[in-house]
């Protein structure tokens, strides 16, 4: 009897294909003029898995666009395609076009390193470097600029102020960043990204590891930041999307299902699939 357990371990676990619901043709109900980011027939594969399927999306400049959808719908993949972080994943292939400021970032002569300076990324789990608070924020500046100590101090302070973190950490700049609370760590990561003045900020479920108070602080911060930059946030929290986003896109099985002004999407979904999702019938 015990022996049968051993035998079962040998073959690799077979991941069952998700139950395929019919995904209707995408419906884009909002027209964004002069988009900061635009994808045209964007597809992403991991090895043979088709993670993003021909997504067309125009993202508003100086606004917050939310991407929602159930786990595994490809929303993080879409986000990471924007600043080419998917390049770091083996066997990941991208087709179609992704325009940032009307330039295809997958075109020839595009240096992903330069792109990422312009398009910051905040991760789901706060990932400060195991260094001091100060060194975390200074890292990006020191990468790209020759700065004197005074200049560096000024930029670090400005970034921390912009991230609403300065008052909490001004006396602990030389302490390890790992000693901060989760919410503070996440705002530190935002400050770190802001320090090099990105034009856009991508946020990959930035609050999913945080408590409601910390989440509220980050949402406040996003409202301030959207005055000066384009923000794209991936979230599985529909209330959050409803609270903060100007536009919301619903992705399912790698396909765009519906894209609309946030309030319209939540109050008057036009697709049955969208309605089922936002009313919590699956996901």
């Amino acid at each position, binding site marked *: 009897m015990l022996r049968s357990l051993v035998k079962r371990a040998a073959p690799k676990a077979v991941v069952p294909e998700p139950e395929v619901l019919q995904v209707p043709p995408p419906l884009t109900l909002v027209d964004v003029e002069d988009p900061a980011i635009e994808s045209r027939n964007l597809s992403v594969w991991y090895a043979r898995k088709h993670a993003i399927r021909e997504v067309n999306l125009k993202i508003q400049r100086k606004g917050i666009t939310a991407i929602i959808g159930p786990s595994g719908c490809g929303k993080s993949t879409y986000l990471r395609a924007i600043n080419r*972080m998917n390049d*770091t994943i083996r066997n990941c292939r991208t087709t179609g076009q992704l325009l940032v400021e009307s330039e295809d970032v997958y075109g020839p002569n595009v240096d992903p390193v330069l792109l990422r300076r312009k398009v910051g*990324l905040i991760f789901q*789990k706060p990932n400060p*470097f195991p*260094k001091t608070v100060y060194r975390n924020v200074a*890292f990006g500046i020191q*990468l790209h600029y020759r700065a004197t100590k005074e200049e560096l101090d000024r930029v670090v302070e400005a970034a921390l102020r912009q991230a609403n973190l300065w008052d909490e950490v001004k006396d602990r700049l030389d302490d390890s960043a*790992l000693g901060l609370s989760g919410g503070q760590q996440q705002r530190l990561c935002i400050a*770190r990204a802001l320090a090099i003045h990105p034009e856009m900020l991508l946020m990959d479920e930035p609050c999913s590891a945080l408590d409601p108070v910390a989440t509220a602080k980050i949402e406040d911060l996003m409202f301030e930041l959207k005055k000066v930059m384009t923000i794209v946030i991936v979230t599985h929290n529909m209330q959050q999307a409803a609270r903060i986003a100007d536009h919301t896109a619903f992705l399912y099985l790698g396909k765009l299902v519906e894209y609309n002004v946030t309030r319209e999407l939540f109050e008057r979904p036009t697709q049955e699939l969208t309605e089922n999702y936002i009313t919590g019938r699956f996901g």
Partner: protein
Amino acid sequence: MKPKSRVVRKAKEAGFVIIFLAGIGVALGVLGVLLASLIVTAAPYLTPTLITNYANYQDPTRAGYAAAIAGTLWILSLTLIFSLPLGIGAAIYLEEYSHGGRISRILQAGVSNLAGVPSVVFGLLGLLVFVRGLHLGAVVLAGALTLTILVFPYVVITAREAIRAVPQSIRDAALAMGATKWQAIRRQVLPAAAPGLLTASILAAARTIGETAPLIVIGAVVLQTFLPYGPDSPFVALPVQIYAYIDLPGPEWQGVSAAGMIVLLLILFAFNAVAIVGRNRMQRMRW
């Protein structure tokens, strides 16, 4: 079907534990006896002259390890200077750059097979290539180059573990800031891996210090009455000198070699202690 007795099953289990505990007891006992007898044998010869006198095969009371200790330090420094950059570089390539394709599999197989080559074979390699081929003669540099090849795979294996322990999120964070791959490695991954890399270096050092056979084969001198003066100097290493004394008949020479081993073990334990403390600190670090 007759059920197996629960008592028998429990007894089997208890039996295993008891046998094992007894085994540990015996093993620790033997280890204790070994250390004790080593110290007892060595005691009469543990004098300051042990490390200040040169080799002497007539009078055990005047025999010492001065040239051997200096030789070991020379060999050790040069071996580390060569093998650490090489080994850590290889580890970085294998962990950060290679993509698990055929080439990386060949490179990895090369490292693990090199780790399995008997040390005496490295001696033959050193004898042919460095001592004879490059006409270096049996000098410090030839010994260090030989041991560099020997410890290289150990540095690679331990350094890879240290680099692998750095969470991917650190790399992602750096890359997302617009760091190039090498900038992310040099400024974030390597500093975060530093404690593990320290452990790797110390383990390599410990191995270098204890190696005997390859140095015998390349022809380390066993009657050297001067300190090595440079990379082109003839040399004798601590374990080689100990072996030379063991080979002499008579309990007094056993005493001299045991005393040399105490010196060798003290150096090694010091290195190992630093390695263990370093690793524990690394493990305690939370991301």
